[in-house]
């Protein structure tokens, strides 16, 4: 591996985990990417995590919303981290 983007190149046609800004996570098959890390992902599961504070008990409530999208484009500049998901826990 010469440069970090090689890691992405080696993940093409594989399912990847993508951590985005704003507590957004994507899992999907990496179809294409470019030098900005713009991506096309297929069979995507999007997870958005929100935390609310319960007014009465003052406790944090963590909510995870997921939805499925067949194919999507991700703009590279919202991406924080990319990892091949098979090796994640």
């Amino acid at each position, binding site marked *: *591996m010469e440069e*970090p983007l090689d890691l992405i190149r080696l993940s093409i046609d594989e399912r990847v985990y993508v951590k985005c800004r704003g507590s957004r996570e994507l899992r999907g098959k990496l179809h294409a990417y470019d030098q900005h890390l713009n991506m096309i992902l297929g069979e995507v599961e999007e997870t958005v995590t929100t935390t609310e504070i319960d007014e009465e008990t003052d406790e944090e409530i963590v909510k995870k919303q997921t939805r499925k999208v067949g194919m999507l484009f991700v703009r590279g500049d919202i*991406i924080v*981290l990319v*990892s091949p998901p098979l090796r994640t826990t």
Partner: protein
Amino acid sequence: MSEPTNTGTPQVPETAAPEDTKRTPSDFLKSVLGRPAVVKLNSGIEYRGVLACLDGYLNIAMEQTQEFGLDGQLKATYGDCFIRGNNVLHISSQAKRKTGL
């Protein structure tokens, strides 16, 4: 500087440190490559792992990565991961093991 050397080019100031004690970012990155490092993002999230490789944007490929949240708790682990350079606040060589804050 009293000498009227009007050459149009600015004079190079005497440096506070001799050349060999300087460590440029590129020197630093060479020394940390392949070693354990801590990468802190602007959001406050920290990644600890082995720095596999880097590029000029500070994009990072990391191995055996552990993700720590703002509270310092372990949040996730990744075998390999790519961190996009624009999020990187700083990279630290893991010379000494940190204890708490």
